[in-house]
C-alpha cells in the first residue's frame, strides 16, 4: 500500500514536471489561443527590466541603439554605430535623459561594437546569454528606436523567431529599421542573445550580431581595439575557409597558393590555437590572424584525425579584393 502511494506521488511529480517543461514558447509552434496568450504574457513580463537598459546612441554623424550590460555602464551596440574608437558620444535613456559615453572597440566582420558610459552611476543592465544558447526556432524579441528616439512613441517591441544562427550572423523575423542598429535582441528568458545589425528588403531578412561574438572577443573590444576591413587587408592572411562547430573551428577549404596550403593545412583540420591563444570563434580567428603582419610567423595548434599537431606558418598577404 505504501509502495503504491509512493509510486503515485512519483508519477504525480513527473506529470507535473512534464507540464512545466513544455512551456508555450518552447513548442515548435503555438497550438492554440492558450499558447498564444502565454507567449504574450511572458513577453509582457520581460519588458520592464529589458526596456530599462535600452539606450539611444547619439553621435555627430548619426544615431543608433544599444543596451547596457553592466552596472558601471558598459554598452553593447553595433560597430557601424560607433564608427571609430575613442569617439565621444551621448546615450539617451528611455526617460530621455542623456549621459556622456566614449566608444571602445568592435569588429566590422560581425558588426559588434562596445561603448562605455563615462558618467558614474549604478546603471540598469540586462543579463547576457552564454555562448551557444540561442537556437534556430527560439522565440525572441527586439527593442530599439527605429528611425531614432521618439518620446511620443516610446520604445518599440518586435517579436519574432530565430531563423538562422551561424558564425557572425543571426537571422530573425523580428523586424528592424535604421535607428534600431545596435539595439538588443532577447530570448524568452530575458537574456541578451544578439545585437541588431542590418536588413535586406524582405520582411524575414533581419540580421543581428550573436552575443557569442562579444564573448569570444570581449577583452579585445573592451581595450578599444576595432578591427576594420582596412586593417584586415593590411594584416596577415592564412588562406583557409572555416566554420565554427561544437568541436571547434573546422577547416572547410584551403585557398590555393596560400600560406595555409604551403604549411600543409588540410580540409577537416580543427584549428585549436594561434600563438597559444585559444580560438573560440571564427571571428576571433580572423582577428588574431589579421592582427599579425603578413610576414609574421604564427604557431598554430590543430587537431587532425584526433591527433594534435603543432605547425609554424609564415603568413601571407590577403589577396587584393579587386
Amino acid at each position: 500500500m505504501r509502495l503504491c502511494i509512493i509510486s503515485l506521488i512519483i508519477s504525480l511529480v513527473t506529470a507535473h514536471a512534464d507540464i512545466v517543461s513544455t512551456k508555450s514558447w518552447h513548442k515548435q509552434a503555438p497550438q492554440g489561443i492558450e499558447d498564444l496568450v502565454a507567449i504574450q504574457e511572458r513577453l509582457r513580463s520581460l519588458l520592464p527590466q529589458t526596456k530599462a537598459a535600452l539606450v539611444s546612441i547619439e553621435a555627430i554623424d548619426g544615431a543608433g541603439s544599444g543596451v547596457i550590460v553592466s552596472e558601471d555602464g558598459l554598452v553593447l551596440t553595433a560597430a557601424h554605430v560607433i564608427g571609430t574608437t575613442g569617439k565621444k558620444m551621448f546615450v539617451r535613456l528611455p526617460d530621455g535623459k542623456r549621459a556622456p559615453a566614449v566608444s571602445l572597440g568592435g569588429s566590422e566582420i560581425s558588426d559588434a561594437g562596445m561603448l562605455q558610459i563615462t558618467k558614474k552611476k549604478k546603471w540598469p543592465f540586462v543579463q547576457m546569454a552564454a555562448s551557444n544558447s540561442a537556437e534556430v526556432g527560439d522565440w525572441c524579441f527586439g527593442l530599439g528606436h527605429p528611425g531614432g528616439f521618439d518620446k511620443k512613441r516610446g520604445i518599440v517591441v518586435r517579436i519574432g523567431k530565430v531563423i538562422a544562427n551561424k558564425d557572425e550572423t543571426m537571422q530573425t523575423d523580428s523586424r528592424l529599421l535604421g535607428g534600431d542598429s545596435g539595439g538588443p535582441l532577447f530570448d524568452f528568458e530575458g537574456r541578451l542573445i544578439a545585437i541588431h545589425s542590418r536588413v535586406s528588403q524582405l520582411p524575414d531578412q533581419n540580421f543581428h550580431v550573436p552575443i557569442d561574438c562579444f564573448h569570444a572577443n570581449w577583452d579585445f573590444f573592451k581595450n578599444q581595439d576595432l578591427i576594420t576591413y582596412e586593417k584586415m587587408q593590411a594584416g596577415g592572411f592564412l588562406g583557409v575557409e572555416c566554420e565554427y562547430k561544437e568541436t571547434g573551428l573546422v577547416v572547410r577549404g584551403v585557398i590555393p597558393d596560400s600560406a595555409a596550403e604551403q604549411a600543409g593545412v588540410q580540409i577537416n583540420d580543427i584549428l585549436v590555437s594561434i600563438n597559444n591563444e585559444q580560438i573560440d570563434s571564427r571571428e576571433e580567428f580572423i582577428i588574431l590572424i589579421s592582427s599579425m603582419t603578413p610576414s609574421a610567423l604564427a604557431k598554430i595548434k590543430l587537431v587532425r584525425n584526433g591527433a594534435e599537431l603543432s605547425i609554424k606558418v609564415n603568413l601571407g598577404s590577403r589577396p587584393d579584393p579587386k
Partner: protein
Amino acid sequence: MKSFVSYFLVLVLSFSLALGDSNSSTDKLPKEFRLNGTATQDAFGSSKNKALHSTVRLTRNDKLIAMGAIISPEGHILTKASSCVGAREATLSGGEKFKLRVKKRNEALDLALYQMISDRNDFKPVNWNDSNASKDVSWILSAYTELREIRIGITSGKHREIGREGGVMGVMLGTESKLGIHITEVIPHAAADKAGVQIGDVIQKIDGRSVKKRDQVVSIVGKKDPGDVVMMQAMRNENEKNFRITLGHRSVTFDLFNRNMQMSGPVSKRKDNFPLILQHDLPLPKEAMGGPVFDLNGDCIGINIARVDRVTCYTLPSKIVFPVVKDFLSL
C-alpha cells in the same frame, strides 16, 4: 572598401557552397514555423477564420487597390478613403465578386463607405471591440492580400495622435534676392516637377502674394494639404512663368532621400493627421490598408489606416472608427 565588402560576400558564398552537403550547420527555420508561418497562423484558429470572412479585397480590373472591412449584413464596406480611389469590385475570401457603390466619405479620418451591389443580407460583418485594444504588446492579426492567409504581429508603441504634415511642392529654396527666391533643386516626379518648374526659376508670387523670403513661401504652402493647388509666379530667363502646382505628400516626396524608406518598400501616401492610432508591425503592403485588424478573440479593434515603413503600420482604433460607422449606417 566597398569592393572589399562584396569580396567578403563572395567568400561567404563559396564557403556556404562548400557546405552544401553537410546539413546541420546550414539549417534555417522552415517557413511554416516562423512568426508568420502557416503553423503559427493556425494557432489563431477561429479568429483567423473571422478575419478572412470579414475582410474584402477592393480591386479595379483585378488589380488590388485596398482592403476593406465588412460592416453590415447588407454588404457595407469600410475602407481607407485615400487608398481606395478607383476601386470597382469587392472580392470575398470565397471568391465571390461584387460591383461597388460609393456611399460616403469622412476626409478627416480618411475613411470611406462602400456597398457591394447585391440582394444578399447574409454578409459577415466584423464584431467591434475596443476593450483590450488599449493594452500595449497584444497579439493582433489581419487578413493578407489574397484572403487565404493572415499576417500576425503585436501592438507596440504608445497610442497617440499623429500630427498634420502639410503639403509640399518638392523644391529646395535657395538664396533670396530682389527678384525673389531662387529654386536650387526640383525633386523628380514631385509636385513642382510635374507642373514644369525648373532649377533656376525665381519665385516671385505664391497665390498672388509677392514673396521675398523663404519663410513666406513655407508659411503659405505649409497651411495647405496634399492635393490642394497653389499658383506660383516665377521668372525664368527674364520671362514670367505661371505654374499650377497640385501639392504632394511630404513623406512620399522626400522618401527618395531616406535610406530607411528605400528598405521599406512603398508606403501609404497619407500617414499623417490622425486623432489617435495604435501602432503595430504586421508585414502588410500598402495595398492592404483599409482592412480590419483583429484581436485573439476575432473581434475587430480597428482599421489599418497607414503603412508607415518596414516595421510600422498605424491602425485607427475602433473607439474612433465605430462612431463613424454608426453615422455612415444610419443613412
